C-alpha cells in the first residue's frame, strides 16, 4: 500500500493518463448500461407492471398479440390457478385537438382495453373507474402538455377521449400506454359503434392449468423476448458492454505490465535486499486496483451527472444491481490484467542487481 500510493503520487502524470482512459471507458460502460436498461424498460414497463406470470394469446397470432383475436368462450376456456384478466392491445396515433397544428401534436401510443376490476389496471389509478370515453394515460404524456381533463384526439377517426388520471411506468415498446374500458377499446379497434366482443389476450397471475387448442401460453419473460427488436437490442448492448470491460482490462494490464518491466532493475534490488515477492507483487496489484477505483468513481459520477441532465431526453434508468455487477467485473478483469505483471515480478532475478 505504502509503495503503491507513494508511486502514484510521485508519477502523477503517467498515472493520470491511464486513469483518464479508465474514466472514459467506465463512463461509457455505466452510461450505456443505464441507456440499455432504460430502453429495455421502456419496452416492457407496462408488461412488468402487470406482475403477471403467464400470457395467453391465439396460436394464429404468431407471437404478435396485436394479431390475436380472442372470444368470451376462449376466456372461459383459460383455466388458471390464480387470477386472469382480459387485455385489448392495439397501437394508435393520438393528437391534441386544441393544438394550433394537430399534425405537430401526433404521438405514437398503445391503447390497452381493460376491465375496471382487473389487476392489470395500474394500482395508482385503482380509485378511478373507466367509462365511455374516459382514459388513464402514461405520465410521459404530461411532457406533451396533457393534464387531467385534457381531451385527446385519435388520428384517422373522429373519436376523442378525456384524461381522468395518469399512470406511472406504463410504456410499451417505448410508447406511452393509454388505458380505456374494454368496450371503448373495441369501438376503436373495429371502428364501429357495434363492435364484436373480441380482445387480444389473457394476462395470468398464477399458473395456467389448461387452454383450448387454438390458444398458446407464454411465460411473461418469453413473451417479452418476442417483442420486435427487444432481444436484438439487449444483445447488442450487452455485447458492447462486455467487450468494453475486457478492452479496459487489456489496456490496464498492458500499461501496468510496461511499467513493471521498466521497474525491473528496481524490483531486482528490492528483492536482493530481502523484500518479498508477495510485498512487491501485492503493491503492483494494489496499484492496479487504486487506478481502477479512482477511474470508475469519476466515471460513475459523470454518469450520474449525465443522467440528471439528459434523463428527460433519453431513456436513462438506474439499476444498482447492474452497476454492482459491472463494477465487480471491472475489478475482476483488472486483476487478470495485473496477473501478467505479477508473473513478471516473480521472474525477476535479484542476482542481476548485484555485481553482474
Amino acid at each position, binding site marked *: *500500500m*505504502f*509503495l503503491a500510493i*507513494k*508511486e502514484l*503520487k*510521485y*508519477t502523477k502524470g503517467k498515472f493520470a493518463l491511464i486513469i483518464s482512459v479508465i474514466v472514459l471507458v467506465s463512463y461509457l460502460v455505466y452510461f450505456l448500461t443505464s441507456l440499455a436498461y432504460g430502453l429495455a424498460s421502456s419496452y416492457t414497463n407496462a408488461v412488468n407492471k402487470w406482475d403477471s406470470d403467464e400470457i395467453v394469446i391465439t396460436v394464429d397470432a404468431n407471437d404478435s398479440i396485436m394479431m390475436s383475436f380472442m372470444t368470451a368462450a376462449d376466456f372461459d376456456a383459460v383455466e388458471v390457478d390464480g387470477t386472469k384478466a382480459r387485455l385489448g392491445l392495439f397501437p394508435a396515433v393520438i393528437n391534441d385537438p386544441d393544438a394550433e397544428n394537430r399534425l405537430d401534436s401526433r404521438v405514437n401510443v398503445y391503447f390497452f382495453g381493460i376491465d375496471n376490476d382487473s389487476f392489470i389496471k395500474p394500482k395508482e389509478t385503482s380509485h378511478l373507474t373507466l367509462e365511455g370515453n374516459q382514459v388513464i394515460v402514461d405520465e410521459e404524456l404530461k411532457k406533451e402538455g396533457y393534464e387531467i381533463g385534457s381531451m385527446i384526439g385519435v388520428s384517422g377517426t373522429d373519436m376523442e377521449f378525456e384524461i381522468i388520471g395518469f399512470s406511472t411506468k406504463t410504456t410499451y415498446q417505448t410508447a406511452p400506454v393509454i388505458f380505456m374500458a374494454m368496450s371503448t377499446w373495441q369501438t376503436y379497434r373495429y371502428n364501429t359503434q357495434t363492435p364484436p366482443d373480441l380482445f387480444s389476450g389473457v394476462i395470468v397471475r398464477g399458473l395456467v392449468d389448461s387452454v383450448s387448442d387454438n390458444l398458446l401460453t407464454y411465460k411473461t419473460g418469453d413473451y417479452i423476448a418476442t417483442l420486435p427488436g427487444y432481444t436484438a437490442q439487449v444483445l447488442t448492448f450487452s455485447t458492447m458492454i462486455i467487450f468494453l470491460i475486457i478492452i479496459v482490462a487489456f489496456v490496464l494490464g498492458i500499461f501496468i505490465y510496461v511499467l513493471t518491466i521498466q521497474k525491473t*532493475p*528496481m524490483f531486482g*534490488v*528490492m*528483492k*536482493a*535486499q*530481502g*523484500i*518479498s515477492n508477495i*510485498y512487491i507483487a501485492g503493491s503492483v496489484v494494489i496499484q492496479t486496483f487504486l487506478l481502477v477505483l479512482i477511474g470508475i468513481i469519476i466515471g460513475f459520477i459523470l454518469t450520474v451527472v449525465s443522467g440528471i441532465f439528459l434523463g428527460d431526453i433519453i431513456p436513462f434508468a438506474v439499476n444498482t444491481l447492474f452497476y454492482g455487477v459491472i463494477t465487480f467485473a471491472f475489478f475482476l478483469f483488472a486483476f487478470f490484467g495485473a496477473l501478467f505483471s505479477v508473473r513478471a515480478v516473480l521472474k525477476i532475478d*535479484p*542476482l542481476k*542487481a*548485484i*555485481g*553482474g
Partner: protein
Amino acid sequence: MKPLIEMINVSKDFLQGDVVISALKPTNFTAHEGELIGIIGPSGSGKSTFLTILGGLQKPTTGRVLINGNPFSELTNDEKSKIRLDQIGFILQASNLIPFLTVKEQMVLYNKITKTKANHEWMDELFEKLSVDKLKNKYPNALSGGERQRAAIAKALYHQPNVIFADEPTASLDTKKAFEVIKLLAKETKAQKKATIMVTHDERLLEFCDKVYVIVDGVLTLKNMSNKNQG
C-alpha cells in the same frame, strides 16, 4: 572478535554446455564485527559469485554460509529473503534508492514491510552523522551522486543489520567524495560493530580496509597489506 558471516569450504560450479566452469574454488572466509573488508579482482574473476553466494542469492555447489553463527545457505528462498531483510544492509551503485520515495521514506519502507514502528530518533541520528538531515524530504533525483550514496548508507544502516554488502559504493563519485563516503563507512562499521564487505575496482579505497582479498580465477587470497599504515 565475533564472526558475523562465514563461508565454510564454499565452491560454485556452472555448467556451460558440457563444460563445467569453476567460478569459485573451495573457499573459506570470515568477517568479524568491526571489520571493513575489501574484495578486488578483475572482471569475471568470481567477485560477483562470491558476493551473491554470501548474500544468499545463489546456492553454493558445496559448503555452507553462516550468518551470526546460524545456517544461511541451506534455507529456502523465502527464509533467506527474511534474513537479508533483517540482517544485511546493501549499498549498491546508486540504484538501490527507490526513485519515488524521499530519503526519509526509504527508511520508513523497512518499517512498513516488517510492520514495525519507525525509529525516528535513530533515523535523525543517522541523518546527522551522514549529513543528509537537510535532504531527508528530497527525492533521489534531486540529490547529487555523493548525497545519494550517503543516503544509501543511511538506508543500509537504518535497520541495524549485522553485515553490510557494498558493491562499488563509490563508482559514480570523484576522489574527494569517494574518500568521504568510504571514511564514513569505515567509521560506522567500527562504531556499530558491523562487518562490511566491499567489492571495488578502486584501489585508492583499499587503505581504509582492515583486510583486502584478491580474487583471481575463482581463488580468494588475502592480500599482503605490508604497505598499509595503522588504519
